């Protein structure tokens, strides 16, 4: 997992600061530039999210500005996708100059697939010396960090088990500013210790949910509050224990769902996480909707003193005019054009006669023609827009060209370098990119991979019906819709900029929705999305893994390793090959059954004894390979399948004994067995195997009923 070194030291960055400061006191910050999500596709295919401009300033600048103000001394930027772009950007930015307020180091970590990987990587590198700020690269905030740090230190003194402080900002009643990943926090009212954390389903699912709290967690808590109105802006102060915990728990992936939930509900760790609640402005740009909202908030000066006219980048020259109009120098405005409220215009931009602009951001060196109407839109640098066009609530990325009389309806996203011919009328929520990205949600382009995919996708034609005869652009469909023609209205409206109220509920696709499903699904989708460069190789690896995994388990059994060692080895293998638990289970079961077969074949033991011996000893492995019902059902299906494949003499007995032994060891619960049984495959080739199990399940159900009737 050790990424390539991309370290870059800034010259004599901290003049005089080093000398009189303990190493302990040096505040470090870790910035996760990658979100491991695909919400900003198709634009993130070209540029990483943290370099996308918000109000003409790359997102990362806001985060770094926050850290500079917070008095951080050392910043580590973790780059995964588009790492070179980020590295180049930082190298040429003011943060790399000698008077930068902190030392900035980019860490290339191209293999990282989730926050957990990054934390483990950090631990391996051993660069964290004390408490550090963990922040994602898309945060916009004006919180007073010193207060948060004070809170953190206070809590640290009071509670030795305190390992991390989360910053949560109170949301308004207005839903759009809320996070796209809703979650409920259960907090101790007096100390604001986080007692429990649970993801909530997206508003789009319109599900009613409940949260289940283990009563044990509420021991020693006088009063607690359950809140779902908090914006999680992903600013955490962590102690140096946090990377260690990630290291110890291989399966932790995300910071909140796995880590926070895992830590606070674990008795063994006995660590505590606190929440710092604030009223100040703190948000993450995590979807098109938040991008839209935050841009408007930023122009409306809700994040003061972080405002556009403080010109945080050296080459900026914004000045403020009333009604929240920001203009850089050398803007050419025609006499009859009208610039409405909340608008920012970059330098070198020309705006023609009769054009009306309102609530919009216009980048540098744009050519905006005559009689154009631009409302609630974002136009990035170097765009050309022809006369008489109407742009409503859309986003046009850099270097795009629009002909005249083009109409962009609500929620259109025009990618980098796209050309649109005259007289085109784009439907709501159309997304266009300049290079074909078929089902692009599943892969992110990297320089190396471009060529091979281009070949793959050569057959995809330009979307002539949308961009016109002279246009250049391909429709981008998010991964949810499989077929372009049959893409339903619902699919189109997912993850858009659109401000239609109904669509608010259909807010997002991508990983977070997958997160809601089973663990298995999630890891699979992570796999498919982030294996960009290794797409081709990964098939080999899958096979490899099966062999390797089986070998590992067999080795463990032969040499009689203890369970933990076997698990650790398997997990390492899983991580390095980046496969899901499903594969791990297959490998493990195959290995176990081979062992059983071996015993029977050599007549060391009878079929039943062999199964019991093997499964009693090694069945516990599954406890760390399957985590919820669906995964257990999957496990049982695999067992059944593999038994058939292994062609035992008495397959029914083997399956029966295997299940009984798992059941006796409390690995599989009754409920799960019933569920599995209800849905079990009716394929005739399994009939023989199931013979004995039928009886067993019936017996189980009867016993269950009897026991329950006895109780009554």
């Amino acid at each position: 997992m050790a990424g390539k070194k991309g370290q870059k030291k800034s010259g004599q960055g901290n003049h005089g600061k080093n000398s009189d400061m303990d190493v302990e006191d040096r505040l470090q910050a870790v910035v996760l530039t990658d979100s491991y999500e695909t919400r900003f596709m198709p634009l993130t295919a070209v540029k990483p999210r943290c370099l996308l401009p918000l109000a003409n300033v790359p997102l990362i600048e806001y985060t770094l500005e926050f850290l500079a103000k917070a008095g951080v001394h050392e910043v580590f930027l973790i780059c995964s996708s588009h790492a070179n772009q980020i590295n180049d950007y930082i190298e040429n930015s003011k943060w790399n100059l000698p008077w930068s307020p902190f030392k900035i180091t980019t860490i290339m970590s191209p293999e990282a697939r989730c926050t957990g990987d990054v934390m483990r990587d950090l631990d391996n590198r051993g660069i964290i010396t004390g408490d550090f700020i963990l922040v994602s690269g898309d945060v916009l905030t004006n919180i007073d960090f010193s207060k948060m740090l004070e809170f953190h230190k206070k809590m640290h003194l009071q509670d030795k088990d305190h390992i991390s402080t989360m910053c949560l900002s109170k949301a308004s009643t207005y839903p759009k500013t809320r996070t796209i990943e809703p979650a409920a926090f259960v907090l101790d009212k007096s100390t604001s210790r986080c007692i429990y954390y649970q993801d909530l389903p997206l508003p789009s699912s319109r599900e009613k949910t409940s949260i289940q709290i283990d009563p044990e967690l509420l021991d020693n808590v006088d009063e607690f509050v359950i809140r779902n109105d908090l914006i999680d802006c992903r600013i955490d102060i962590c102690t140096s224990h946090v990377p260690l915990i990630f290291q110890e728990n291989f399966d932790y992936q995300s910071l909140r769902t796995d880590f926070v939930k895992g830590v606070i509900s674990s008795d063994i760790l006995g660590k505590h996480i606190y929440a710092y609640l604030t009223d100040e402005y703190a948000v993450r740009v995590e979807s098109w909707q938040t991008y839209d909202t935050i841009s408007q908030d930023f122009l409306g000066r809700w994040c003061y003193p972080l405002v556009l006219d403080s010109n945080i980048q050296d080459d900026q020259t914004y000045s403020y005019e009333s009604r929240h109009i920001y203009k850089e120098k050398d803007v050419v405005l025609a006499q009859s054009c009208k610039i409405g409220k909340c608008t920012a215009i970059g330098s070198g931009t020309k705006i023609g006669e009769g054009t009306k602009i309102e609530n919009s951001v216009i980048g540098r060196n744009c050519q905006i023609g005559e009689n154009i109407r631009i409302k609630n839109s974002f136009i990035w640098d170097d765009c050309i827009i022809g006369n008489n066009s109407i742009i409503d609530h859309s986003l046009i990325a850099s270097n795009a060209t629009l002909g005249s009389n083009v109409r962009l309806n609500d929620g259109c996203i025009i990618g980098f370098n796209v050309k649109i011919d005259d007289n085109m009328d784009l439907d709501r929520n159309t997304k266009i990119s300049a290079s074909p990205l078929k089902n692009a949600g599943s892969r992110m382009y990297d320089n190396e991979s471009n060529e091979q995919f281009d070949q793959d996708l050569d057959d995809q034609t330009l979307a002539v019906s949308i961009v016109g005869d002279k246009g250049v652009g391909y429709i981008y469909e998010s991964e949810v819709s499989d077929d372009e023609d049959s893409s339903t209205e619902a699919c189109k409206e997912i993850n858009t900029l659109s401000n239609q109220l109904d669509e608010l509920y259909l807010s997002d696709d991508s990983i977070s929705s997958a997160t809601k499903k089973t663990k298995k699904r999630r890891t699979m989708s992570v796999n498919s999305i982030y294996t960009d460069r290794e797409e081709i190789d990964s098939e080999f690896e899958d096979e490899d893994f099966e062999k390797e995994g089986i070998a590992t388990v067999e080795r463990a059994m032969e040499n009689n390793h203890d369970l933990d060692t076997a698990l650790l080895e398997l997990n390492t293998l899983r991580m390095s090959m980046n496969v899901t638990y499903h594969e791990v289970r297959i490998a493990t079961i195959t290995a176990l059954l081979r062992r059983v077969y071996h015993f029977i074949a050599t007549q060391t033991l009878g079929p039943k004894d062999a199964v019991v011996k093997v499964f009693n000893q090694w069945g516990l492995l599954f406890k760390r390979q399957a985590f919820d019902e669906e995964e257990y059902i999957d496990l049982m299906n695999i067992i059944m399948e593999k038994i058939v494949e292994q062609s035992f003499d008495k397959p029914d007995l083997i399956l029966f004994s295997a299940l009984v032994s798992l059941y006796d060891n409390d690995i599989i619960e009754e409920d799960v067995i019933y569920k599995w049984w209800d849905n079990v495959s009716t394929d005739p080739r399994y009939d023989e195997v199931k013979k004995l199990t039928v009886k067993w399940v019936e017996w189980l159900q009867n016993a269950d009923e009897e026991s329950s009737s006895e109780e009554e």
Partner: protein
Amino acid sequence: MSSQAFTSVHPNAATSDVNVTIDTFVAKLKRRQVQGSYAIALETLQLLMRFISAARWNHVNDLIEQIRDLGNSLEKAHPTAFSCGNVIRRILAVLRDEVEEDTMSTTVTSTSVAEPLISSMFNLLQKPEQPHQNRKNSSGSSGMKTKTDYRQVAIQGIKDLIDEIKNIDEGIQQIAIDLIHDHEILLTPTPDSKTVLKFLITARERSNRTFTVLVTEGFPNNTKNAHEFAKKLAQHNIETLVVPDSAVFALMSRVGKVIIGTKAVFVNGGTISSNSGVSSVCECAREFRTPVFAVAGLYKLSPLYPFDVEKFVEFGGSQRILPRMDPRKRLDTVNQITDYVPPENIDIYITNVGGFNPSFIYRIAWDNYKQIDVHLDKNKA
């Protein structure tokens, strides 16, 4: 004078160490980490001192250009922090005076006719002229070295200015005592002004006058300051009332004097005060013919003219006024942090060099600054 061949030398001339300090300060200004014109003025002067000690130049005009560049970059970083531009212009004026003297002394010796031109009151107050030195006009040939040590002159100027700024309150307090009468009701709408605070406390303690002070609440940006201000006054046994901003008009008939603090004073006699709502208070005072006193240190005097008031007023965040709302359906909020008071609404300026009518401010400005340095930006000059 502004088009000198040496101007390009600036970035390389000073050592990188100074550049680091300058850019750190610029970044701090941009992040608004330095607050208050007093702090900004002093920090700017410290920076200027380091800059001048490290600067290299061939001719004094080169040095002046370098300082102008520095001033320009600082003004750009925080356009509404006037005091940093002001102090730099003051030092420029000191240097230019020195240059003028030198040139004059040369011409005096060569022609021995020219009479020293007394251009302003400031020159009258200058320290006695140094003995004339016999030398050629330095601008004629580059090979000639000027004997005046401009570095020394500038640094001495900076030191004097630092002393002046630090002792400004003393000067103002001298005048304060005579202005406040017994049993008078005063109103101040600028609770964040330390000068006003000291002014009032001195009036109470030195002359043992009893008077009442009304402090406006200063919603939304200064409410906390107003409370602290009132508390401090109360601790000095001054009867203090915090009043809502909206009650000012009703109370004005009872008020004897309005005292305002300033952030910058422009040549037309108008002022930028550090709290929104001051303008309306002064308007009320005018309605009731209540005298308005503005207290200002000399370093707040700016040679700029407020043609476009909007450019000089700072706009703060919206979050203090209204709760967060849907950006598409919300009211647009504008939160002025500072406020412009036109000269006709101010009766007298109390500075550390005396009290002046607003219409006389331009005169003091030209005593301290040079016309040529009004715009430090080369494009505007």
